[in-house]
């Protein structure tokens, strides 16, 4: 099925066309969501929302860009919305934990995982540190950097997804890289890794 056939099929309510869309683009959507959310379950959950949103708003797709770009855009927006909602929930969760004498203790959880090799744990920590730093970047820089570096999309496609010019994309990515490296150095120094 070509892109056009898929779009026409979904508009006409064909089940096979929608199945084709989901099967063809699920890996792309799930991994974009995962690049932003850094959590497999959340990524799968949000990806489902992305396809549902795509199904409902197929009428507004004008075919000026590729389906992948359109789906990327929806996936980025849905993921950012999810992060925003999660932050709100976290405020209440932290209050809940505070009132319940802090039942959750990350240090204890880590101690319990004796079977995990130290090296693997250190790598995991490094990865989480990187995610933490990426999440602290301004929204546009974060989106541009994630799409370009983690999803390995070219500047042109990032620009299309973000609806900005290619040069703006370049500026955003360069700023993001500089900030990220500075913050990584600071974080690593703080954690006595250097």
């Amino acid at each position, binding site marked *: 099925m070509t892109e056009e056939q898929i779009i026409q099929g979904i508009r006409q309510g064909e089940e096979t066309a929608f199945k084709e869309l989901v099967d063809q683009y699920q*890996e792309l959507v799930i991994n974009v969501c995962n690049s932003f959310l850094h959590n497999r379950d959340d990524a799968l959950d949000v990806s489902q929302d992305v396809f549902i949103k795509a199904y409902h708003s197929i009428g507004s797709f004008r075919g000026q860009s590729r389906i992948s770009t359109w789906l990327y855009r929806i996936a980025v927006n849905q993921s950012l919305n999810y992060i925003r909602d999660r932050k709100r929930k976290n405020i209440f969760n932290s209050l809940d934990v505070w009132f319940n004498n802090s039942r959750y203790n990350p240090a204890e959880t880590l101690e319990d995982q004796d079977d995990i090799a130290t090296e693997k744990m250190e790598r995991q920590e490094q990865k989480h540190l990187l995610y933490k730093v990426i999440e602290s970047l301004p929204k546009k820089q974060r989106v541009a950097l994630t799409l370009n570096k983690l999803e390995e999309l070219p500047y042109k496609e990032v620009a299309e997804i973000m609806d900005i010019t290619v040069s703006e994309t370049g500026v955003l990515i360069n700023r993001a890289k500089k900030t990220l490296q500075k913050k990584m150095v600071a974080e690593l120094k703080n954690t006595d890794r250097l």
Partner: protein
Amino acid sequence: MKCKDVHIRLLDYSEKTLPKGEMEEVKRHLDQCETCRQLYHQIQTSWEMAKKERIPYQPFFYTRVRQRLSNQSQPVRSHLRQLVRTTMYPALFFIVLGLGITIGIQLGKGIGPQQSAQMQDEQEDYLEAYAENQYLNGFQLESLEQELFFADTASIPRSLNQQQDSYE
């Protein structure tokens, strides 16, 4: 090149996207500086790990999406209920509040200015009658209060003195 300058070029260095001259300078610095070398390895490792973290094709993904889609289209009633909850309840609250305020105002309006003036007059008449009659009983003029507050007879108002004389 200083450590600070190397730090902001580490990502590009790991991806080999720096200009040739800068690549060589960073490499030279990393060969000499242990701290920057460690930092480079840590950033490189975490970045590579993040890139490798891919979720493979999910065989039952479509079924789940389809299920959610059909779940969403079914509960029209629950949407309606939610709409009622979110809009009707506050509206009802404000209607009741408005009614309460209106009834209060209407009740207040029931006592018009004429009625109010008449009531005030009646009250004043009663006070005057009381003021006139309270001195009929001479015994009241010799009350304890008078002993205490008007011990000095000079300070007793003239009208009271005259009234006392007439009783005597």
